[in-house]
């Protein structure tokens, strides 16, 4: 970095100021930086301005997170799971469930096995945002790709409420719910996605709907869903279901 007295407002300066404000400088560089601020008021005001930008971005983001934070309060049931006996009981129930689940599903072919073998969440859309004007949708996509499905769902549900006909939102809400273990909710969205044969997601929606039905052990319905599918993945899946 040019340490002479010329104050440059360029990318390099911006990154250096970021490093200072986000506390990424080592002590020596930090001391130099502070010295420079003392010597050059113009540099100091550049730092102040960048500080304001950081704070503005942070506060704006915090305020925008409140709806998401708040939504978790409403759903939370009032339960006390603190006492050890409750925990012990809960643990033993959990063990019992997992043992019996294992016992049921490890024997023979089952719809759950086919589900597990075939379900991979849709890789999602690129988050370059050049094609759409919907910021929240793409931020949800970032969550989705990080496997933060609940967050993606809550973002997309807000969009869905305002645009119940948007096939992209409907489809991804379906897949995200399925990835999040909520087959029932997934089914609801994917069924409505399946009613849009003109959609680019039509074939994929059928495939995931069949998987959601499979997860709920509705083998016949899953077969029907795939009956008219032409995509290779759906055909393979249908074959596996038929062998159940």
């Amino acid at each position, binding site marked *: 970095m040019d340490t002479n007295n010329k104050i440059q407002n360029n*990318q390099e300066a*911006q*990154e250096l100021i*970021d490093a200072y404000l*986000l506390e990424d400088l080592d002590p020596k560089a930090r001391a130099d930086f502070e010295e420079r601020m003392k010597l050059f008021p113009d540099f100091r005001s550049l730092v*102040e*301005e*960048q*500080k*304001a*930008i*950081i*704070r*503005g*971005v*942070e*506060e*704006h*983001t*915090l*305020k925008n*997170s*409140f709806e*998401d*934070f*708040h939504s*978790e*309060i409403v759903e*939370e049931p009032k339960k006390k799971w603190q006492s050890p006996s409750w925990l012990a009981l809960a643990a033993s129930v959990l063990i019992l469930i997992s043992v019996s689940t294992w016992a049921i599903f490890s024997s023979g072919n089952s719809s759950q096995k086919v589900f597990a073998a075939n379900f991979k969440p849709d890789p999602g859309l*690129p*988050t*370059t*945002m*050049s094609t*759409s*004007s*919907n*910021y929240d949708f*793409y*931020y949800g996509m*970032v969550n989705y*790709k*990080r496997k*933060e499905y609940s967050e993606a769902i809550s973002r997309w549900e807000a969009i869905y409420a305002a645009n119940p006909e948007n096939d992209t939102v409907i489809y991804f809400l379906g897949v995200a719910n399925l990835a999040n273990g909520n087959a029932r909710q997934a089914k609801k969205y994917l069924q409505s996605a399946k009613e849009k044969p003109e959609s680019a997601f039509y074939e994929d929606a059928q495939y995931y709907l069949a998987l959601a039905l499979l997860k709920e052990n509705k083998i016949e319905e899953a077969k029907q869903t795939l009956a008219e599918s032409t995509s290779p993945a759906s055909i393979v899946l249908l074959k596996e279901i038929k062998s159940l």
Partner: protein
Amino acid sequence: MQTISNQKIKDLPLNRTAVLIKQNDTATLKELYRANFTKVKRYVLKNNGDEQQAKDVYQEAFVAMWRNIKDDKFSAESETAINGYLFQIAKYKWLDHIRSVKYKNTTFINREIEYNEPDTDENEVQNRKIKLIMDSIGQLGERCQLLMKLFYFERKSFKEISELMAMDEASARNAKYRCQEQLKKMTQMIPNGYK
């Protein structure tokens, strides 16, 4: 992202929580938010408010708490638990609200804690600038908004950002620079601080 269980957050010393808040750790902020709302709601409902008012006053208080921790105005060595601090702010904000409705000209209230720093000229200019920036962010393109958010709020590295946004690292750096310059231009102020 760091995930902290409810129990763990209770056991954290205050300064550790303060550090996480300063870094905008989402799990910490969310848990703090979740843990304190009910108490504030109960207080507001008991004092002639409704649920929406409780939510508004709580969110205002939450921002004030966050600001004060960021600015080291709330001392981390203090014995007061952060939850208590947040509740106090919300409570006083609600009392202020009631008073301002009842007696429009009553301004001074003897508070046990100050939640708003009295404005000196210097930080008044800075606060106005911050507000201007917040008002302008929405006018940036979505790509810029996301970049700024990932970099400054979530404190992601350019490498992580480049992965999330499907671009190479150098492009992410350039894009962030350009977005920030754009935001700066939008919020350029004349010397007295007014746009």
